[in-house]
């Protein structure tokens, strides 16, 4: 993690670089806490150490991942004729 003086404002407030990584066909993982702005202008907050942001947009807990993406992945695999272990 990297921190230092804010480059734009020159403020001494320490800013921390957040690590983000993407799970293939799965959520975006972001170091928390996270405030997520929804399309309707409201916000939801998650203060976990890492937050899984849903990218498939099918989660019942949107914007947070609830592992629904696993079904979508399986359906795509089936549609493209991929079978288990091939």
């Amino acid at each position, binding site marked *: 993690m990297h921190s230092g003086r804010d480059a734009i404002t020159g403020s001494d407030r320490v800013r921390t670089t957040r690590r983000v990584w993407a799970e293939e066909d799965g959520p975006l993982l972001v170091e928390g806490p996270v405030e997520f702005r929804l399309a309707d202008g409201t916000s939801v907050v*998650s203060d976990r*150490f890492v937050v899984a942001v849903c990218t498939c947009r099918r989660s019942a807990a949107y914007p947070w991942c*609830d*592992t629904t993406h696993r079904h979508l992945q*399986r359906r795509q695999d089936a549609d493209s004729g991929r079978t288990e272990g091939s």
Partner: protein
Amino acid sequence: MPQIPGRQPGPPLPTPRGPLSRAVLHALRTSGMPGGTEAAGEATDPWGEDLQLALYMLYELHYRGFEAVDEELEWSPELLTLRRALEHRYLAALRASVPAADMTQALDGLLDEPARGEPPSLSDHLARHGTLADLREYAAMRSLYHLKEADPHAWVIPRLTGTAKAAMVAVEFDEFGAGRAEDIHARLFADLMEDLGLDSTYGRYLEQAPATMLASVNLMSLFGLHRSLRGALAGHFAHVETTSSPASRRLAAALRRVGAGAAAVRFYAEHVEADAVHEQVVRHQVVGGLLEEEPELAADVAFGIGATALVEDRFAERTLSHWQEGGSALRGPVLPV
């Protein structure tokens, strides 16, 4: 032993289920030697009620102990010798039944939910047909683990280094409420139990828990207490965290359907989101980090995953068969309403 005021007395000792558990009970009550344990040999079923309860009581000395049992017995050489013999029996039975698997395949296999035509999982059954009575029994049995949720896994921490350690501690921190006592997962489960009209006292349902449930908790204690099984513990944790999120979604739905209260639903709703995160952290950082440092542990991780699947399947199968026959999955009297 006199109770020290202000201290939690620990749960009462259970009644024995055969010669082994009777010998352990006698030793715990009298602080004496566990005599009459020849049955620890080939004669006793490693999956049976007697052996699993004996092992459970011996492990419990490392958690909260029992009412009026000397705390020092945790390190009694005689009891540890007996525990070792029982662990060997259990571990041999597991190794004989868990098919050898490739670690990556074992991990990926966890992402697949039962396909059509396969027997439904326990959470599937509860989501579709579970009654309030079924859910109360389920919670009573699971309380043996959930009231000490994540405790068995904490033992692995000093055996890890680097990425695996940092990630393991981060997940455990979440399990233990991220610094807030009211959010400790074991506390959330106690709230769920109270919402369902169950007694949330630690160890309250040990008496009613069948061997298949004891085997599930004993597996975690076995993997957690042995440094040599740290790979299996990591595999166990990966299994739990990967299968928990979808199962929790179904259990939350089941509880809503039977009209359970907010506290009951909260426990599983919290696990849907938390475990979607934990799954990724455990797979990539705990298991991935461990194998980067110690690649030779891959087979142990696969064994841990396979053993957990086996033990959970046995629990689900027995529970479902009792419910489908219209009976109770608990030992002894059904829960009062």
